[in-house]
């Protein structure tokens, strides 16, 4: 096909092309300069609590949790006829919900007004200036479990209020294990004995070892020390022995399959509910699935045979890694008073109990553990022992990065590519450095 048009030299840039590019670039830079100013700062004019308004509540949870939230919202709207609550559904996956919230905060959005925050986020959000300091509303901080209340307190302010608590403990089969172990050595021997006796058991201990946040909570529940005094140098003998135990459970004692290095709560749940393990480390939702009304036929192997205790610790002070959700208010929200009303409602005993009974979310308010609750769901009594040992993960704005380091460390130990002590000594300086960046900067 012949061209009748002249060939291009291709060497000189057309003037028009350059000018278009220049305009685009200038425009982009201008937008960038405007858009990237820090999104923290004071909120606009505040709407009083008595005025008619709509607040946006960003929360996770579909299924029974979603239903429970909807019920609470309806009840709240009945009590406060001038306030409407609009629910913004976040992803059920914690990491993704974090991204979704971060995107809104970095964009300086005034909504959502109230957010559900995983217990490890408030410090990071607060440091970035994205959360309102709720101290001005004088919250009753002593009515909550201290471990969880601490997750919302940062640099003297109160940035989040506990909503419901979670703690990770050791499930054990009451028919196979007569008395729950109090030391790891006893756990090992109990598990091995059970496996020898009952050949239908596939493993002795199921826990979460995949490279994700759950590995850090598992590490902490098994005795890993991450308190402020230790965090500066995690290379302690206590931590080394916990890591060694995690590794030995797989490679030396053979009570945990090597598959645990790919397991998350879902797989541990499957292992537990199908009755193939006498011990499993997991969160309270398993209790409802194992012993709750209407859990059959899925729970048949473990129904009525489920016990739950803090993971044994040789030093005598066991830990249960703290989870759960807090409630916080967007610093840019113009409906902070109404938001506070909503949060207060959700903290009331009646709301807390209602959610606990319908969705299985354990109350974060101490007074909600009352006879009403126990009548409807007796296993909450047993859960209290675990919550008493609830230990929060580090409350620091760089927790996400610290966690990433810990996840890498645990993962490399479980896969056998690092020895526990080497992994600890390699990770400790990085964590120390992360802590120093936030201590010195902003």
């Amino acid at each position, binding site marked *: 096909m012949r061209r*009748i048009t002249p060939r291009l030299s*291709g060497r000189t840039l057309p003037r028009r092309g350059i000018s278009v590019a220049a305009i685009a670039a200038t425009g982009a830079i201008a937008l960038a300069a405007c858009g990237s100013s820090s999104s923290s700062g004071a909120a606009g004019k505040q709407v009083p609590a008595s005025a008619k308004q709509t607040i946006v509540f960003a929360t996770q949870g579909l299924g029974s949790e979603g239903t429970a939230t909807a019920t609470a919202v309806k009840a709240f709207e009945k009590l406060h006829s001038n306030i409407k609550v609009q629910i913004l559904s976040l992803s059920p996956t914690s990491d993704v919900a974090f991204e979704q919230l971060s995107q809104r905060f970095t964009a300086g959005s005034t909504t959502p007004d109230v957010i559900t925050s995983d217990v490890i986020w408030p410090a990071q959000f607060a440091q970035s200036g994205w959360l309102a300091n709720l101290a001005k509303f004088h919250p009753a901080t002593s009515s909550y479990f201290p471990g969880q209340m601490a997750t919302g307190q940062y640099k003297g302010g109160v940035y989040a209020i506990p909503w419901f608590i979670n703690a990770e403990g050791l499930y054990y089969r009451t028919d196979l294990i007569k008395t729950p172990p109090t030391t790891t050595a006893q756990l090992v021997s109990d598990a091995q004995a059970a496996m020898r006796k009952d050949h239908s058991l596939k493993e002795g201990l199921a826990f979460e070892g995949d*490279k994700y946040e759950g590995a850090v909570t598992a590490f902490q529940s098994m005795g890993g020390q991450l308190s402020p005094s230790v965090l500066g140098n995690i290379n302690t003998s206590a931590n080394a022995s916990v890591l060694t135990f995690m590794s030995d459970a797989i490679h030396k004692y053979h009570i945990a399959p090597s598959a645990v290095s790919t397991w998350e709560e879902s797989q541990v749940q499957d292992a537990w509910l199908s009755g193939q393990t006498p011990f499993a480390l997991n969160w309270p939702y398993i209790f409802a699935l194992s012993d709750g009304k209407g859990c059959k036929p899925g729970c048949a192997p473990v129904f009525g045979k489920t016990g739950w205790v803090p993971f044994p610790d040789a030093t005598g002070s066991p830990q249960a890694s703290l989870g759960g959700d807090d409630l916080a208010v967007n610093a840019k929200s113009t409906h902070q008073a109404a938001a506070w009303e909503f949060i207060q409602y959700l903290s009331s005993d009646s709301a807390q109990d209602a959610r606990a009974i319908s969705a299985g979310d354990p109350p974060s308010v101490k007074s909600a553990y009352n006879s009403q609750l126990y009548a409807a769901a007796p296993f909450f009594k047993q859960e209290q022992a675990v919550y008493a040992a609830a230990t929060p993960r580090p409350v620091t704005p760089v927790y996400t990065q610290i966690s990433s380091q810990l996840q*890498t460390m645990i993962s*490399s130990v479980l*896969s056998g590519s690092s020895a526990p002590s080497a992994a600890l000594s390699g990770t400790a300086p990085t964590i120390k450095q992360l802590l120093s960046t936030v201590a010195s900067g*902003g």
Partner: protein
Amino acid sequence: MTARQEPVLPAGQAEPAPPEGAATATTAVAAARPRRQGSYSLTKQDRRFGYALVAPAVIVLLAITAFPLVYNLWNSFHNADYLFPTTFSDFSGVRNYTSMFSGGQFLPSLYRTLGFTAASVAVEFLIGMALALALSRKFIGRGIVRAAILIPWAVPTVVSGLLWKSMFDPQNGFVNYLLNALHLPLAHTTWLGQTWTAWGAVLIADSWRNTPFIALLLLAGLQVIPRDVYEAAKIDGASAIRTFWRITLPMLKPAIMVALIFRTLSSFLIFDIVYAMTNGGPGDSTQVLAYLNWFAMNGESNYGLGAAISVALMVMSLIIAAIYVTAFRTEQVG
């Protein structure tokens, strides 16, 4: 992209021999068309018309690519770390770039990513080529087979990642079940729990989804090659391998180049499957560059660092594309 000066014929299309009549016909038509003041204003009008036609596409794409690019460039030289709001937007020079390297993760991640890219391109190209050759033959059920192998490509990548993660589950997954049933080795491997097997699993998941597309591109390229070329080779007594090497492959070069660039850059920027299957583990052995990029923004809230990594990724992508184009250009000229 073709090497020739005419930018209009892109790679993959062999220029058919122009019939003699066409040239004379077009020049005759051109001569017959009345001109105004010589060919200059006709060209100018033509040019304006052309710009108008091209403008929408260019504007839309500039808006969604150039803008983020410039924004990221700007951000990469400023402090955009939300953990330090008081010094936000301050000019930070090359600090984001130096911290990118001083973190100690960028270079290892780069090597890992390059290694995976080389492996996946090799594997997927070879299998894709075999597949394309097979599908270019006429056989019964060819249509159904073509459709069947294209279907993996219709699944969202993130779902594909989840699917393969469950298939590689050491206790409950299908892979170990099958290996066990066939009494093959590796039947009890914790696939995602060890470095090399984790990479293997990622490679398998990636290949399953992407090889069909490569096969498609190569198949299209194969279809362009006229039959008489093959027949001439057969008459000359060339063996199948010789035919492939000396005739098919050279004529496929444009399609191969497109397929290779596409595949190389996709592998280099891989994220979804790694995120879904391994989250960078075990340890950090599958932590690819795109993952670092994502983590800087979503884990560390440091958009300055994230922007720097984005810029680095874009520059490297350009270099890779340029390498391919140059390599194929010299091939064609030489």
